[in-house]
């Protein structure tokens, strides 16, 4: 299997932004995760390796360094709750408990029906609007129990 042509075209433009091609690797990993099933599969590592002239294991080395890259498939929706200090002081633990309970996903895992993954993450830079979580790439801030219920309930 190879990368879809649309991504190849995108990467061909992207690598021109840098004096060395491999500099585009992290941007490319983001695009792969966004468009190829929400994670970086071994196949994606091989394909990116081939594209950038790197060994697949070098791609793995980079991808595994960065917490945003999923090296395993996730649920259909991903909730990342901030558990750092400003959020912890304003009830992040309660948010985590509520999110896990509502979604049926264990913390750091995926619900049995495959719909939800829940994780807790380090500071997301929403400290003045704590507590917060990121749902599928969108920040939800100033969370309360009522608000968490409403946001999760609205997800189809």
């Amino acid at each position, binding site marked *: 299997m190879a990368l879809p042509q649309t991504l190849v075209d995108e990467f061909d433009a992207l690598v021109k932004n840098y004096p060395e091609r*491999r500099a585009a690797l992290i941007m490319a990993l983001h695009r792969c995760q966004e468009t190829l099933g929400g994670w970086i599969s071994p196949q994606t590592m091989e394909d990116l390796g081939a594209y950038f002239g790197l060994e697949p294991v070098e791609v793995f080395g980079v991808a595994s360094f960065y917490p945003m890259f999923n090296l395993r498939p996730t649920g259909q929706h991903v909730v990342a709750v901030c558990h750092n200090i400003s959020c912890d002081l304003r009830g992040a633990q309660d948010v985590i408990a509520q999110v896990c309970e509502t979604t049926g996903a264990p913390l*750091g895992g995926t619900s049995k029906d495959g719909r939800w993954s829940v994780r807790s993450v380090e500071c997301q830079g929403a400290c003045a609007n704590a507590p917060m979580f990121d749902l599928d790439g969108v920040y939800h801030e100033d969370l309360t129990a009522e608000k968490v219920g409403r946001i999760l309930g609205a997800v189809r």
Partner: protein
Amino acid sequence: MKAFETYLLDRAKTEGNHQLATYRKLGGYKSLEKVLETGITPQQVVEETKKSGLRGRGGAGFSTGMKWSFMPDATKDPRPRYLAINADESEPGTCKDRVLMEKDPHGLIEGSLLSAYAIRAKAVYIYVRGEYRLSYDRVASAVREARAAGLVGKNIAGSDFSCEIFMHKGAGAYICGEETGLMESLEGKRGHPRQKPPFPAQSGLWQSPTTVNNVETVFNAPFIMERGAAWFAGIGTPNSKGNFLVGISGHVNKPGVYELPFGVTAHEILEEKAGGMWKGRKLKAWFPGGSSCALLRGSDVDVVLDHDSLKARGSSLGTAAMVMMDDHTSIARVMEVIARFYEHESCGQCSQCREGTQWLSQIFRRIAHGRGQPDDIATLESLALGMAPGKTICALSDAAAIPTLSAVKLFKDELIECIRQQRDPLASPAPKYASVGAH
């Protein structure tokens, strides 16, 4: 608090300012055009910035003009020159650059271009943390608008100054906010900080001269060039000049990002901006500038929030992210959270940091969960002293050791009591789920 003039967040208050037309209407790009049209030289921009007293707003507080002047002489050094904008805001408690990028992205572009002009760079990379999707999209879209208007790219505003701006995304690693970790990451590698020297100005991105500046730092440049170094230097205290952004979070009534001149006290910010402590409670402890600086006691809130005053109290200004904790807060819990963070974010290159952060985290966790051991306080101290100062490639190890030492010093009795009772008297009811990282 005395009345003061604002400038950093003025435009951000206008709806639609993230678009070029509104930014222009509010006077945007005038400073850049003035510099390019009136023949002010890059050297003059550096000198003016030095005179202004502007210090970096990313945490280290180094003189910006001085940093720019470390770039080698362009007439003798033919290598390409780069400016990297550090928009990898991830110091716990810090959320100020995000406001600028979301609400005033052209202000960042104008500041970046003036800074690039000063150091004679032809390319700027804006490294935005991956989680900041809206910030990234707003800045990327502003770059496209500015390019279409002739303000980015070849012959900017009809001058002979050409400069490209490229957008780049991080992917969740705190260490990439360290300037050499950022450069590694920009080159498509793991974000392992580099040994210094060589410093970035001598050999940075792709072995070329590079300057790394924080978002808020370069955001000040257009104001300094428009209104002059004397105006800027007239605001603040002897060694801290201008206005700055304070993020205040934790147990306060009105957490937020506020613009203030240097010279105000933490107490004034807490009471007059953040509406005081919540629930009528007292301030027990606080971080003045993110979790990497020393904790202060509640009674230290009378301190002026600037570089020298905080240093005199044994802490530092850091990113001016005030994290406020009320008198119901458990210090063991606070340190469990902080130590877990550094354990998770250590890149693992240096053994003091890799092992040290892990041990700090384990020990604070067991103290907070009623399993502390009699020697734990002494062990924490000896570990922290083995991790800092200056024992590792970068300052992450120091950043873990500093709050540890302050917590052990200021709140020793409380920690000892947790160990003695084999429970944390101030613990909130046990959360249902233990908190662990993503993988």
